[in-house]
């Protein structure tokens, strides 16, 4: 017992101050990607160069799909380097279309739930995590939210053991054909009203496995998704920021 107390005193208090204090991330962290102003209109070379389909023309204008982007360090899309990654870790949005990012346009970050679900879930949100083909990186960065650095519990959010106890599903992975049925059964077993949260590029659009006959093309083609959290994997603070925005507990902007 004394040894435990001594070690605890030595290790010190380690819980972060988020969201009051912004997190310090690695200077090499790759957050919100953007097309730089030098990106010449009419050039659409990146459309064919990105192996994951993250660049495309939307209504005639070039746009970056944060849902498909894997935040590659050696981004192969633009040989001129007109795509660059900002340090902004805040990426979660409410609609699939909002993940399409056009030059010089801000990201419409997730807005809070409607008043009634917010009344229900705002101070107590229990989530069932379902990995459906995930590589265990998104899963690990969800798990880490439960450690004392992030201390998810202080926001009233908790991962629970059964869908019957849950207010929603947090899904990772490209939804492998072999998890399709189990995922839908888990959704059915969750009592309504319920939320669905897609975490990571795989869940949003198949990620690196997009196009494989063994995976789905996106969770939103199977279930109604309330929150999209891009990244491969998203940083834990990206996930936490998204969850808090959904519950109306983050200042906008």
């Amino acid at each position: 017992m004394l040894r435990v107390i001594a070690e605890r005193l030595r290790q010190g208090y380690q819980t972060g101050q988020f969201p009051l204090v912004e997190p310090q991330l690695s200077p090499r962290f790759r957050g919100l990607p953007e097309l730089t102003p030098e990106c010449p209109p009419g050039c659409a070379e990146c459309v064919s160069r990105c192996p994951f389909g993250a660049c495309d023309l939307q209504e005639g204008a070039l746009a970056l799909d944060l849902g498909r982007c894997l935040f590659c360090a050696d981004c192969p899309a633009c040989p001129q380097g007109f795509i660059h990654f900002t340090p902004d870790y805040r990426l979660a949005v409410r609609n699939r279309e909002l993940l399409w990012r056009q030059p010089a346009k801000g990201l419409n970050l997730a807005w809070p739930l409607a008043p009634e679900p917010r009344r229900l879930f705002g101070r107590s949100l229990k989530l069932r995590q379902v990995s459906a083909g995930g590589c265990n990186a998104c899963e690990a960065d969800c798990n880490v939210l439960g450690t004392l650095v992030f201390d998810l519990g202080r926001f009233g959010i908790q991962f629970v053991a059964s869908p019957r106890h849950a207010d929603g599903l947090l899904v990772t992975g490209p939804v492998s054909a072999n998890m399709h049925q189990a995922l839908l059964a888990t959704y059915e077993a969750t009592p309504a009203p319920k939320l669905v949260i897609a975490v990571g590029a795989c869940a949003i659009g198949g990620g690196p496995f997009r196009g494989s006959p063994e995976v789905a093309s996106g969770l939103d083609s199977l279930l109604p998704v309330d929150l999209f959290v891009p990244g491969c994997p998203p940083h834990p603070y990206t996930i936490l920021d998204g969850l808090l925005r959904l519950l109306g507990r983050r200042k906008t902007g």
Partner: protein
Amino acid sequence: MRSKQSVRIANGAQTPVAQIPRLDYDTFADAVLAEFDSGSRVAAYFAAPETDGRLELYAVMARERHANFALFRTPLGERFQSLTPNCPQLHLFEREIAEQFGVIPEGHPWLKPVRFHASWRTGHDAWGRDPEAHPRPGDMEFYQVEGDGIHEVAVGPVHAGVIEPGHFRFQCHGEQVLHLEISLGYQHRGLERLLVGGPHPAGDRQMETIAGDTTVAHMTAYSKVLEGLAGQPAPPRAQAIRALGLELERLANHVGDIGALSGDVGFLPTAAFCGRLRGDYLNLTALLCGSRFGRGLVRPGGVGFDLDGGLDRQLLATLDGVQANTLGACRLFFATPSVLGRLEGVGRVSRSTAEDLGLVGLAARACGVPRDGRFFFPTGVYKESFDEMITDELGDVFARARVRHREIEVSLSLTRRLLAALPDGEIARPLGQLAPDSLALSLVEGWRGEVAHVAITGGDGRFRRYKIVDPSFHNWSGLAMALRGTQISDFPLCNKSFNLSYCGFDL
């Protein structure tokens, strides 16, 4: 005589396929079994379609005492005589071949699907399943025990924790587990088929997500295969930075596992400390390459990030505090009698079982089986800087925890040595043409165990077959054996002590 039957190559090397003698099946079987008898074990065993569509079977045998690999091949018809009865460690490899190509290993004692996908050769299914419908995961005959008081417990695919899916079927008598059968495949993403015709532009990121917690090891194995085919090893500085990434990956996962074991036995101080410390190691990797999981760190030809601008000193300074806290958290764990009482004697795997099943990595080392790719098949900086392979004796949960603890100490010291003496020079060289009609292999010791990759190229230098063997492929059977005779309530603890990858197995 035997040199005429096989080709021997070193880790990271390649050979023209034509130089591997094409044996008839009986000669092949005798030669492979003779290798087993002389102490070799299987690193990879797979079928590959030839350019004319006919199948060939390849055996890659790891020869620890000679620091090389013996390669055998034989043409494969619609049926072949199973070698599993004589060599149990082939059991899953033969099942995998049956599932992928619809050929039947006759006399296989446990011929069931591995990942529940359709045969790659349409119309040839080993179980005669409907070619139009996707196979249903878990659709197979489970081993059943019958008798008074026997009951069955089914768990999964969706589990209680934030972990990957898999199905576990326990045969129990009261609380005692008589047998555990593990049925996976839920995470199958069709990876090996996607790689055919590669290297593709998406290949790097697919390799990094084979098993997300083993990003650096899998990406290093892939890069070394490509470098072997191009005949250009990565520059020394890149090899040192890769080793740094590998050791940080090992530290993060070993520390996390000590914490998870601690949580499972209800000892919360170390669980809380290690949960946080694991993140500290991930953040060290992020300092290096911007990603907590090492995405983008390793690239074919070298590495994507250098330690410039005093980053080596910054990493060393950060490591000081993290190291002190890690060792303190571990010391507390191993000095608490109630913790040790829960770990000792639980989930034991004997040395002979470990050898028969071909276990690898820390699960094998905990049973006293000396198996560490850094020691037996070293490449790059490991040639000079690694001689501290850790083994234990009893093969129980305690031994698996203690191996982790000692390996944490070794990795910390190795990380410091690497950071203090990084070779100068470039960090990457563009790769040249890949050799056509060749086979290249690489074996990298990831934190769970050996990650083995084998590529066979066609006449155009593109992949005709790419085989991935994650350590979990060898080790899930070890977990099943560990459960025999234990209480079902010990399952979470045993499972954590192995901490195997579902997606690494399912591919």
